[in-house]
């Protein structure tokens, strides 16, 4: 029997969120193909995958999960949608398989002692929101200068869009800015009323918490109501090519968080082009390789593979890891600059190091700006303010545990 580590890939290639879901899913697939082609797998263990279409719908996502979770050699799941993450969070505990939600999902899941199986790697909505506020503060010349400013949050009316609110409220209380919240009903094609309100309020900044078509529509409405794009700041899910491409010039000056860079320079992307696309094995069109969401897909998959590799280091090289073993791998990721360089990810992301109590591993991000043709990533890295995030995560996790009548993981559990 061949040794195969299986990656179930939940994705959506149809429906309202397909423009964003497709490059993401392609990046994941291509990375797996690349590892097999370049390295012959992980220490001789071949990587396999199967994709399952969720259409961004929770029930279909659950079905995909149920179908794929019992395949031999399942490593972990990346649900690609906040709603599906919620539903799976309840299930992975019993099924003993990890859930990675890089840059999305539950903010409180950062607390690994409460959420053993969830891994919101590299950032949650709380860290994202905090970084944006820090950036605005810096622009104004100090966080205290935000006092009295008006900041409006235009958000996708769903748990995804609502997640940053507690943090922003906390920050508003602290720093004394005025926070207005305008929900946009999913999928977000109709935002006229929202932007009329923005025009009425004339806020100093608009934070855009959108996904899919909501982002480009927001930019178009902003243009139509004359709101300056350079005062708009999006989350990292509102900062990819599909969000701005068809707005073109109209989106010039718009900013968004950057969890990763884009472009074809990174070595990992070059490797993919060389070993996969040039062989005609690419999943999607070649010109999309290296775009923001494609690269994010690559990163997610790279971290997944690294988790497997890490687990093998402990549980036996060249073996197929179980879901539990991969989970350990995720909890003990230690990707320093050197390792990142080996992965070809230098400059794309910052080092990551996870632990039993921190399932995020890194809370750094930059801000990028659209110049009408491409994204330019700013030089400054920001780290979310521990002082604020930590207590909130702890409190949230405690409430979760209390509601569920569960207890924190014992320290010994962290060793296993």
């Amino acid at each position: 029997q061949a040794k195969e580590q299986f990656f179930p890939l939940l994705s959506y290639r149809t429906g309202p969120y397909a423009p964003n879901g497709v490059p993401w899913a392609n990046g994941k697939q291509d990375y797996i193909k690349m590892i097999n082609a370049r390295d012959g797998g992980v220490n001789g263990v071949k990587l396999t995958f199967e994709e399952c279409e969720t259409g961004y719908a929770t029930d279909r996502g659950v079905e995909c999960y149920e179908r794929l979770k019992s395949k031999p050699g399942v490593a972990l799941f990346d649900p690609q949608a906040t709603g599906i993450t919620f539903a799976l969070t309840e299930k992975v505990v019993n099924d003993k398989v990890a859930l990675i939600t890089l840059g999305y999902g539950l903010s409180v899941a950062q607390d690994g002692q409460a959420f053993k199986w969830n891994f919101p790697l590299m950032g949650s909505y709380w860290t994202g929101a905090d970084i944006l506020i820090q950036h605005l503060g810096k622009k104004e010349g100090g966080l205290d200068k935000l006092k009295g400013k008006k900041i409006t949050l235009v958000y996708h009316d769903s748990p995804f869009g609502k997640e940053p609110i507690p943090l922003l409220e906390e920050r508003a209380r602290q720093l004394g800015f005025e926070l207005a919240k305008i929900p946009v009903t999913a999928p977000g094609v109709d935002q006229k009323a929202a932007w009329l309100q923005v025009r009425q309020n004339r806020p100093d900044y608009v934070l855009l918490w959108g996904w899919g078509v909501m982002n480009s529509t927001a930019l178009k409405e902003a243009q139509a109501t004359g709101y300056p794009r350079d005062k708009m700041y999006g989350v990292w899910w509102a900062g990819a090519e599909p969000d701005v491409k068809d707005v073109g010039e109209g989106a010039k000056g718009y900013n968004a968080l950057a969890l990763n860079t884009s472009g074809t320079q990174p070595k990992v992307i070059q490797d993919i082009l060389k070993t996969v696309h040039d062989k005609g094995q690419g999943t999607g069109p070649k010109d999309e390789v290296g775009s923001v969401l494609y690269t994010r897909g690559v990163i997610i998959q790279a971290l997944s593979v690294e988790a497997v590799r890490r687990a093998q280091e402990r549980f036996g090289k060249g073996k197929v890891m179980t879901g539990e073993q991969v989970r350990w791998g995720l909890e003990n990721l230690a990707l320093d600059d050197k390792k990142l360089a080996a992965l070809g990810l230098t400059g794309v992301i910052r080092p990551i190091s996870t632990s039993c109590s921190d399932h995020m591993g890194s809370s750094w991000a930059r801000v990028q700006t659209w110049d009408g043709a491409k994204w330019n990533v700013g030089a400054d890295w920001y780290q979310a303010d521990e002082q604020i995030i930590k207590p909130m995560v702890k409190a949230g996790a405690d409430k979760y545990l209390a509601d569920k009548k569960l207890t924190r993981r014992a320290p010994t559990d962290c060793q296993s």
Partner: protein
Amino acid sequence: MAFFLETLLGGLMAGMLYSLVALGFVLIYKASGVFNFAQGAMVLFAALAMARFSEWIPLLGITDFFAVNALAFIAAGVVMFGVAWVIERLVLRHLVNQEGTTLLMATLGITYFLEGLGQSLFGSSIYKIDIGMPKDPVMILESTFQGGILINKEDFYAAIIAAALVALLSVFFQKTATGRALRAVADDHQAAQSIGIPLNRIWVIVWCVAGVVALVAGMIWGSKLGVQFSLTTVALRALPVVILGGLTSVPGAIVGGLIIGVGEKLSEVYIGPFVGGGIEIWFAYVLALGFLLIRPQGLFGEKIIDRV
């Protein structure tokens, strides 16, 4: 005051755009008694076709902006005619004289089919339709109000196109013999057949017209929002419009659109903030419902007949 006017104008123009989609529903309902669930999918399909053709045509060496758009429009129109023909051949023809729900269901099947076909032929990314609509706002009455009143030029032109189309179709339905035949078909398929109205031809014609309406709607909405899957959801926004105006009335689609457009924008802007916002969708439906309680057949709909 200025802001109120702005909201009002915004609502009116949004309403006109809803009317455009609503019109597609009305056309088909009027002509065959079918509630065409696939209207949203047709809008998407048409818009996708047009967007992609306007990408592909320059590859043939035609680069003139106007020519490209005109050719893309025509090509997409031809595609929609084809769709109409196929739908009649493969679906409607076999469902003569069936109940409304059956036909509704069939249009649902068509919806899925078109969504799948559209995305596999034309792709599922975001595409662009650029028909040269101005994107930046203009301010008017700046002397009267401080800051002026903002008008979205694109919406304004779109509203004019919509109004023209609607007017044209109203005339067509009002007096012509075909208009009458269409209404007859809607009332009773079998009786219409028995006196020699060729249902097949009528249906192809109507679906073609509805296809063109979908194309115009798709073009305008697409130019506003970009062409991608969510265009189908504008159908849900147009639904209260159709119902409020009356399922069978072309002018109803316009008036309904204006009422709903204004109603939902005003409510969202003036009531929304007090209850947390996001109320415009259900408010539109509740508004329509309020009108229905007074006139159960919609403002301009034909009276619902129940006689014993």
